[in-house]
C-alpha cells in the first residue's frame, strides 16, 4: 500500500510542473501580448519599452519562465489588469465557489448515474434497462447550456420554485471567511445562509450533474455486468452465499475500481461543464472568472485560473487513484491488470 501511495504522490509535482509549463507556453503562443491588452493605442514606443522592462517582458524567454515558476511556487499569480486585485486573492474567492458546485454536481451525477445503473443491471435486458440505456444516451448528448436553459425555464420562470441566478440572494449579508458557505455558516453561526445557498445550487448542479450522469450510467452498468460474469461470482454461489451478499461483496466490490475511475474521469468533464454552467447561472465561480478574463484579455487572470482548474483536476485524479488503491489489493502491489 505505502509503496504504491508514495509512487503516486511522487508524480504530483511533475504533473503540476507540466501543467504550469504548458500554460506558460500557450500564453506565449497566443496572438497579441500582455502589453497590447494593457496599453491603449496612444502609448508611445518609449513608454511601451519602459512598460515591458518594468514587467520583465524584455527578458529572454527562459528567464521569464524561471521567474514565472518561482512566483507560482510562492502562490504569486500577479495582479489582475482588470480588477487591480491579486489573482491569488481572486482565485481564493472563486475556487471554493466552483468546488461547491462541482461537489454538488458530483453528488447528483453519482446518485443518478449509480442509481440508474443498478436498476438497469437488476432488470438487465428488460424494458427498464432499455429505457435507462436510451436515457443515458440522451443525457450524454444533451449540451449543458441547453439543459440549463430548459431547467431555468421550467423551475424559475414557469413554476417559480428555484432561483436561477447567483450564489446567494443580494438581500443576504454574507461576509465570507473561507468562501465555503457551508463552513462559514458554521463558523459565523449563520444557519440562515444554508437554505438560500442550497436553493441557488440546485439548478446549476442538476444541469452539470445530469448531463454527466449519462456516461456514468452506461459505463457502470457494463462494468457491473462484466464483473457478474467473472468466475469468482460462481465460486461465491457455489459456497452457498446469498444473492445480496454476492452482489455487494463480490460483484460491486470488484467493480468498484472501474466505477471510481469512471467517476473520477467524469469529474474532469464536469469541471469543463461548470465553466459553461457558471456563465448560464451567473454563478460567481472560477469558470465565470475565466470567461470574463478571456473577454477582457486579462492575461494573468486567465493564466491563474487555468492553473487553478488544472490543479483541482490533478487533485481529484489523485484522490481517485487513492480510492482505487484502497479498493484493489492488486494495485497496491503494483499489479496493473
Amino acid at each position, binding site marked *: 500500500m505505502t509503496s504504491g501511495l508514495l509512487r503516486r504522490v511522487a508524480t504530483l509535482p511533475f504533473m503540476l510542473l507540466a501543467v504550469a509549463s504548458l500554460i506558460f507556453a500557450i500564453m506565449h503562443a497566443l496572438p497579441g501580448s500582455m502589453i497590447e491588452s494593457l496599453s491603449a493605442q496612444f502609448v508611445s514606443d518609449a513608454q511601451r519599452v519602459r512598460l515591458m522592462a518594468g514587467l520583465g517582458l524584455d527578458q529572454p524567454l527562459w528567464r521569464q519562465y524561471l521567474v514565472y515558476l518561482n512566483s507560482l511556487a510562492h502562490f504569486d499569480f500577479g495582479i489582475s489588469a482588470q480588477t487591480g486585485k491579486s489573482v491569488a486573492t481572486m482565485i481564493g474567492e472563486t475556487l471554493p465557489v466552483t468546488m461547491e458546485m462541482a461537489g454538488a454536481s458530483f453528488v447528483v451525477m453519482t446518485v443518478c448515474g449509480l442509481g440508474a445503473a443498478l436498476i438497469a443491471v437488476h432488470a438487465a435486458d428488460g424494458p427498464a434497462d432499455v429505457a435507462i440505456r436510451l436515457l443515458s444516451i440522451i443525457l450524454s448528448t444533451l449540451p449543458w447550456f441547453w439543459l440549463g436553459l430548459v431547467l431555468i425555464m421550467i423551475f424559475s420562470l414557469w413554476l417559480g420554485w428555484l432561483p436561477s441566478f447567483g450564489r446567494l440572494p443580494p438581500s443576504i449579508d454574507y461576509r465570507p471567511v473561507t468562501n465555503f458557505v457551508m463552513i462559514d455558516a458554521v463558523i459565523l453561526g449563520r444557519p440562515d445562509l444554508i437554505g438560500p445557498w442550497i436553493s441557488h445550487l440546485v439548478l446549476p448542479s442538476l444541469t452539470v450533474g445530469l448531463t454527466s450522469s449519462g456516461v456514468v450510467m452506461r459505463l457502470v452498468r457494463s462494468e457491473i455486468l462484466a464483473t457478474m460474469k467473472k*468466475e*469468482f461470482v460462481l465460486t*461465491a454461489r*457455489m459456497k*452457498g*452465499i*446469498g444473492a445480496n451478499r454476492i452482489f455487494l461483496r463480490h460483484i460491486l466490490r470488484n467493480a468498484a475500481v472501474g466505477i471510481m475511475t469512471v467517476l473520477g474521469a467524469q469529474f474532469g468533464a464536469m469541471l469543463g461543464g461548470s465553466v459553461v454552467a457558471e456563465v448560464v447561472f451567473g454563478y460567481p465561480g472560477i469558470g465565470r472568472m475565466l470567461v470574463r478574463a478571456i473577454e477582457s484579455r486579462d492575461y494573468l487572470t486567465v493564466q491563474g485560473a487555468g492553473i487553478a482548474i488544472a490543479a483541482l483536476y490533478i487533485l481529484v485524479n489523485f484522490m481517485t487513484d487513492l480510492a482505487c488503491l484502497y479498493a484493489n*489489493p492488486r494495485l497496491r502491489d503494483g499489479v496493473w491488470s
Partner: protein
Amino acid sequence: MTALLDVRALSVSFGPGGARRTIVDRIDFSIGRGEIVALVGESGSGKSATALALSRLNEGPRCGYSGEIRLSGRNILALDHPDLRRLRGRAIATIFQDPLSALNPSETIAQQIAEGMRAHGMAGPDADDRITRLLGEVGIHDPDRVTRAYPHQISGGQRQRVMIALALACDPELLIADEPTTALDVTVQTQVLATLYRAVQKRGMSVLIITHDMGVVAGMADRVMVMYGGRIVESAPVETLFALPRHPYTRALLDCARHVRDASGHYATIPGTAETAFALRATQGCAFAPRCRRARPACFTHQPELAECSDTGRVACHFPLVGSKIDG
C-alpha cells in the same frame, strides 16, 4: 454401496429462447458413498455442464434442466432457493478449473474460506484455527501467511490448494472437481492431485472428477464415465475400462492417451471434432458415428441406449468392442 447421488434422465439445454441446444441429453448415473467417479470426454462433450448442473450453478434465463438429481433421496431440481443455498457448499462443493479467476481478487484467502463457513453457521470462534489447519492439510507450508494473502500474492499451485480447502471447508458429502489440475504446471499437477486424493480418502467423501486426462483417471478414480456429444457412452470400473474398453470412442481416447501409433507410425487421433456430434443430433443416430471407423448404417439411424454389457459396465453402442485386441 448405497448411492449418494442418483441422476435420472438429466438434460441441460442452453442458449437464448429460440436457439436452445441440448448440451446434456438424458443422462443417467449414480455415485456411491465414498466413491470417486471420473467423468471424461473432449471439450464440448457436456461434462462441465453436467458438473455445474448438479448444484444448479449454470441455471438461468439461458440455461434450463429437466430430469432428476437426487442427493440422499432429495431432488435438487425441485429445491427452492433458500434450500438450494443451504445445499451449496455444504452438501455439494465444487473445485473450479482456474483458481486465479475463481478466487475473489479483493479478499484475503481467510476471508473467502470463512465466508462459506459462516454462510452455513460453521464458522464458530475457532474458525481461524480451522482454516489454518485446513490449509496445512492441503499442503500449504506457510498457512499463516497464506490466510492473510490475496490470491495474486500466492502461486498457482497454492491457489488451487486454497480452492480445494475452500471446497472442503464445510465437509460436503459430494465434492465435484472440474478439471482441477488443467491450469497447473505438469510438475505441480501430480502433487495437487495427491493432496486432493488424500483429503477425500480421509473424509470418505464422494467425488466426481471431471477431466480429459486419462492419467488423472487412472491415479484417482474408482469408476469412469465417458461422455460424448452430451451423452454417457460408457461407464465401467477403472481397471475394466482401461483393460477392456467397450465403446469405440473410449478405445480411441485411450489410444490417444497412450500415444499408440498406427502401422504407418503416426500417433492415433480421432478424426473430426466433437462439434460433429451436435451436427448429427437431428438425425437420431449415435453421436459418435460420423467419427467412428466401425460405424454401420444402423449407427446413423438409431441412437444406442446405455445398457449393461457386463456385471459392472454399461455401454451405449450397437456394436461394442468385445476384446481389447480388436481393431476398428
